[in-house]
């Protein structure tokens, strides 16, 4: 009799390990210090970095990605500071996000808009008009700030950006 380990999607696991280098999720011994330190966990108790690492190692990645929970990470890096094994759960989560995108999952809408703006404008947002304390609208121009130029003008540069980020909003 042997234990059924077909659950583990070895290919996907290898991709994650490659993406989180030089950190090593295999070294996690489930002490859950990361979850104790986690900022997101304080306001969203179902978000548990140690559980995310455990599920990743088990290869239950589709289940994890379907839940959408990885997008809740606040990227405060506390988990990485407190981890005694240098697993850096935040890096695992970033790798899982990348993997999700490459598998066709959509990120939260705001991130899609940011990606589109970066490709088209070179910034995550166009310069907006802001309201002051006196209820007046101000722009860069009316504040006397220099006009922004488009940082990416080279065709090859724009192509690079499109290749990296175009897929999430097109």
């Amino acid at each position, binding site marked *: 009799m042997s234990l059924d380990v077909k659950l583990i999607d070895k290919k996907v696991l290898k991709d994650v390990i490659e993406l989180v280098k030089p950190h090593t999720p295999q070294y996690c011994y489930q002490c859950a210090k990361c979850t104790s330190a986690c900022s997101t966990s304080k306001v969203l108790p179902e978000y548990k970095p140690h559980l995310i690492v455990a599920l990743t190692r088990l290869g239950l990645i589709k289940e994890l990605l379907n839940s959408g929970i990885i997008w809740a990470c*606040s990227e405060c890096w506390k988990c990485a500071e407190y981890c005694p094994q240098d697993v850096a759960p935040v890096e695992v989560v970033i790798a899982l996000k990348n993997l999700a995108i490459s598998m066709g999952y959509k*990120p939260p809408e705001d991130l899609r808009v*940011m990606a589109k703006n970066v490709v088209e404008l070179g910034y995550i947002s166009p310069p907006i008009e802001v309201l002051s304390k006196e209820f007046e609208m101000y722009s860069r121009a009316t504040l006397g700030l220099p006009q*922004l130029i488009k940082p990416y003008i080279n065709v090859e540069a724009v192509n690079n950006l499109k290749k990296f980020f175009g897929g999430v909003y097109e």
Partner: protein
Amino acid sequence: MSKFLLFLGCTIPTKQYAYEISVRNVLPRLGIELVDFPEAGCCGFPLKGINKKGWVYMSARILSLAAKKGLPILALCNGCDTSLRKVKDMLKHDEVLKDEIAELLSREGVKLNFNVDVYHTIEVLHDFIGVEKIKNLVVRPLKGIKIASYPGCHMLRPSDIPRPEPSGEPKKFDAILSALGAEVGYYPDKGGCCGATMLPYSPKHAFRLTAAKIRNMKDFGFQATTTSCPYCMEMLDSKQEAIRAELGDDTLSIPVFYITQLVGLAIGLKPKELGLNLNLSPVEEVLERLGVSLYE
């Protein structure tokens, strides 16, 4: 005279204008020469979840453009500062990644070069200008005002790369505040997260993280808070009213300043020169105590 490339990132030149205004008006008065760097654009940090290599490419491009100019970078944003230093570290230790990024950059005629120093606002104020010099220029001390320094996550973490505050605590930040005459001190979770990166997932949850910070500051008797990160400012100041409404708690009210705005106030600049009319939190509470009108 120290000279730096003024790297604004995304959030500052597209909406957090008060930071840019106060930096442009304050730092030159303290002997810092700022050189505009408009071809830099976004550092890519907010998009690393979509494509990590894409983020590395964007930050590597900025480092290379700066290296060509032969000047150190002044990164105003915590995220940009972390991004550039993290990417420097990654390129230093990963030959394969380095070659791949060098090839991408060469297509647009940019030679990969990450041999460039990156500094954050707090380091320029503390390490280059120095608290003694700042102290000597103070004409309007922030006396009797207890101000909570709020470093934001990435000024402290990840600690495996050089951070503006290497001690893991905002010590330089508090030293600058003390030089301005303000009272400083401890409050719980001082190095905690403002929640900004959680916004795309759920504003409701993100707001609760910010609210916890404001409560801790108020519980420990602080009358104002200050940051040097545009994301923290966005949460603490710009969204303060929305946070009060969401949580139905009117006590979540505190004046929030950029550190450069406080330095500017203390060395005698006018509120408008510091973009203080753009702060939406009740900054007048502090200005009144200093005998300054927001509209002068």
